[in-house]
């Protein structure tokens, strides 16, 4: 196996671990962010797309082993986030802090749209506690299950992904220039 491919595999493993593990670091500070996209956004800046999609898909598998088996159902969300991150990076959306925040927001919207059907159909509207609470509020105010899940996910995911986008921007700036794809 070529050394370059081996390096890509190691970086993919790091991106997967960042997707799964950074949420725990955020919890150490008592912040409720999941940070489950920083590895994917960084991967979009470092890895060829094939490795990025592999890393994104396996992030859900590893999260289902390490955190909660339900993450297995969100493979599609991670892959959609990876594709969105590649598109936004190539459009130059991670070149400044405000643009990175907007990119994070767009990734959040994309993530909410892709994960809402899974949350509504498979989990009956129950997701992570913050989204479930918002879903309950929307349901109580008379919205349908689908609208509630989509609205709740969009609010929580967009905030979470804006923070992830900003952190990813800081991290991309600190990468050695020879590492960027």
């Amino acid at each position, binding site marked *: 196996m070529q050394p370059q491919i*081996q390096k890509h595999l190691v970086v993919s493993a790091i991106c997967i671990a960042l997707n799964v*593990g950074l949420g725990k670091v955020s919890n150490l500070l*008592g912040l409720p962010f999941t940070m489950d996209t920083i590895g994917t956004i960084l991967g979009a800046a470092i890895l060829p797309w094939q490795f990025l999609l592999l890393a994104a898909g396996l992030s859900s598998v590893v999260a289902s082993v390490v955190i909660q*088996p339900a993450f297995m159902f969100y493979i599609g969300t991670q892959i959609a986030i990876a594709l969105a991150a590649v598109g936004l990076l190539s459009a130059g959306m991670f070149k400044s802090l405000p643009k990175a925040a907007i990119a994070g927001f767009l990734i959040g919207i994309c993530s909410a749209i892709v994960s809402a059907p899974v949350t509504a159909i498979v989990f009956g509207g129950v997701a992570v506690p913050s989204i479930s609470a918002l879903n309950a509020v929307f349901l109580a105010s008379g919205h349908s299950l689908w609208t509630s899940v989509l609205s709740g996910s969009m609010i929580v995911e967009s905030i979470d992904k804006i923070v992830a986008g900003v952190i990813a921007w800081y*991290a991309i700036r600190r990468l050695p220039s020879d590492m960027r794809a």
Partner: protein
Amino acid sequence: MIPPVRALGWTALGGTIVMCSSDRLVHFSLAVSIVALTVASTKSLKTIKTFVTISLPLLVPLILIHGLVNPQFEMNARMWSVPYRQEGITFALSVYSNLAVFLAIATGWANVNRDEFFDWMVACRVPVFLVGLVGQSIAMVILIEKRGRAVLKAQTARGIPTGPNWRHRLRALPSVILPVVTSLINEADQRSTALWSRGFLEYEFAAKDLPFGGFREIGWVAASIILPAAIDFSLRA
């Protein structure tokens, strides 16, 4: 521990039954059976605790949301003078019945020895790079948490405010996360060289035969069909 072949058998069986049947009772019987068989395999009641731990965060909000909050279901019943939505509870239980099978299977997989499972994947000709990727990632998740703790302590010692209010914590977030992220990315070269020098990822399929438990495993798979059928029958009777 549970052999991977047994967990695979339960996965195939559970997946097939959930796809073919929409009967809530069948799903619950299967979930209970898989948990019971996992307890019998591991000879440890900790399995029940694992199942309950991963189940409750889904079951409780489902019942609360649909049984009490969701106005699409009529508020038509009372328990200890607390009104609730009977159809909402039924809906919540029917969603949970599918999840219960999945979570019971996951509980079984949680008791599979990781090394044995990786040997199995290699023997089953799953590409070694995939096995390595998953194994490396799981190992690094633990490393990230440890490093995060160390960086947090170091930054606090340097006088960076990391609390108590959320604005301080939010401002401290990049100073804790970025050192963890950049140190890991910068280590990629070293890790890649270390793996390459140890011949990792050059490994070729070497296992002569699959570790299969023979009649013993066939017996377990048979039990995982007969037991849920018996529970289902007794519940209906």
